[in-house]
């Protein structure tokens, strides 16, 4: 009942044409590939030490082998963007892994068993819907201390109901199909049917949901880092950089905040369009 489900369903309609174009898909794959490469190899690719500060260089513009210039503490901006890719991509990956695992499990168990199990799981999920994701992440930071792990796990908990709800209806559809009944008559155990037959038939939808979730998680995690409850400075992270760049913005040097923000927007848009594309190939199953 919030942005995740609705935005996914509505913006999707308008983007369908755009997402269908091969050029756009190629571009999106390229953006995500670069971000992943930076996340894995970031520190190796960075031309300078991302944490080496030199106040003489504060807010100095691009020159020589500093193609993006420096931030307010005189640290090389490009190096920090590359280094920041790691936590910026890792956080959403944790959210996606946990929320998809929990959501898929709950969905399949609900759909398969039905009855009171389904109602009980549904009731628990309904309560979780009452917690906006960012609010849950703030609560988690208060309890466990500020940090990427607590924030990512809290967001995973907040997003699980959305995933579980979408996948449950898909699992119910599969459950009602004849091949499932046939396998049951053959005496195959329920777990085996679910793992070997039912889940593989839902893989397109799961992939589409995971990809779209990555985008939402990235925005929310960056927001949590921005308000100081996620990744902690001086570690480079795109959300942290937008926050630390705020001082520069006020002094008329928006390069740090805007470049980090642009990284977030590019990856989020690319991931969303790819998610739409996967959903389309799956026959629009994501809706």
């Amino acid at each position, binding site marked *: 009942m919030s942005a995740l489900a609705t935005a996914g369903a509505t913006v999707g309609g*308008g983007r369908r044409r755009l997402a269908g174009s091969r050029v756009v898909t190629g571009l999106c794959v390229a953006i995500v590939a670069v971000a992943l490469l930076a996340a894995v190899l970031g520190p190796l690719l960075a031309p300078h030490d991302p944490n080496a500060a030199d106040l003489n260089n504060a807010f100095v513009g691009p020159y020589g082998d500093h193609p993006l210039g420096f931030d307010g503490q005189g640290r090389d901006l490009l190096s920090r963007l590359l280094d920041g890719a790691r936590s910026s991509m890792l956080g959403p990956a944790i959210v996606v892994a946990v929320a998809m695992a929990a959501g898929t499990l709950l969905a399949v168990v609900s759909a398969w068993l039905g009855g009171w199990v389904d109602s009980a799981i549904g009731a628990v999920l309904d309560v979780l819907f*009452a917690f906006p994701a960012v609010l849950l992440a703030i609560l988690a930071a208060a309890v466990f201390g500020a940090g990427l792990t607590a924030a990512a796990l809290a967001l995973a908990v907040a997003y699980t109901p959305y995933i579980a709800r979408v996948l449950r209806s898909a699992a119910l559809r599969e459950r009602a199909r004849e091949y499932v009944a046939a396998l049951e008559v053959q005496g195959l155990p329920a777990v085996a049917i679910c793992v070997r037959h039912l889940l593989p038939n839902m893989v397109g939808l799961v992939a589409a949901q995971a990809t779209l979730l990555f985008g939402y998680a990235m925005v929310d995690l960056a927001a949590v880092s*921005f308000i100081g*409850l996620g990744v902690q400075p001086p570690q480079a992270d795109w959300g942290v950089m937008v926050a630390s760049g705020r001082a520069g913005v006020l002094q008329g040097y928006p390069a740090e*905040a805007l470049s980090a923000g642009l990284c977030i927007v590019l990856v*989020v848009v690319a991931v969303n369009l790819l998610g739409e594309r996967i959903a389309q190939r799956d026959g629009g199953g994501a809706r």
Partner: protein
Amino acid sequence: MVGFALKRAALLIATLLVSSFVVFSALFIAPGNPLAQLSGGRTLPPEAVAALEQRYHLDDPFLVRYWHWLTSALHGDFGDSIAARESVSAVIGQRIGTTAALVALAALIIVVAGIGLGLLAGLRPGLADGGVLVLTSVLAAVPSFLAAIVLISLFSVNLGWLPALGNGSGFADGVKHLVLPAFALALASLAIVARVTRVAVREELGREHVQTATSRGIPRAQVIRRHVLRNAAIPITTITGITIASLIATSAVVETAFSLNGLGSALVQAAATKDFAVVQGIALVLVVAFVLVNVLVDLLYALLDPRIALGSRAT
């Protein structure tokens, strides 16, 4: 309709009870002694420790403690802020106005600009439609905190039209200080509302009853008002309500970006300093507001579309 409202109210009370329980018990999930949590790791004088033990009934069973906390909270007593040395209800009282005004202003922007742009795009295919599509695609992709930074950079630092930070003093100045934050909060949701409005209007325009009305010679303005907008209002109201509800949590991010003295920024500070009574109090207020707005949306939805209430009575 009454049955539907009653059913929704029962569900509401259950949700509020459970979510208040979650907010309360979060304190006790934390590793270590709840006293250490409540004091935020500060060393307190023995009388303060005794006061905390008594206030939180730390010697009582867990459910009894929850009951004490909940009943005091219902009386407007959320305990005391350790950092601010005042009651949590005083902290909430000072700040709730800012947050309410911010969310209300953002909601106004979403309703006027979001639905307006959506109607424009839906009713006028071609250039207007294309422009709205491009604009909303860009806006939907910009997170609120980045929108805040861009707006500050553009309208405060470069153009100098509006103040960047703080609450301002007095009514007019206060509103002036809320303009940029409200836009930062509203922009992404505005794009989603515009998109949904556009699609809803398009769908209704293509319906047979609309074509029939047009072929009967009913003036276009009347067809649009009576047949298109009346039906399109259902999805538009739903998406507007849902996005406005989601603003309540996002306001914490925007208030922090603009150094506004609202509930959200107080929550963020309290979470960072482990001022737990404040975290619980504000989290509870925000969750209640979020749930209430969602319930209002559901009721409005049932009013606009009688099939919903009928369906719930049938089950």
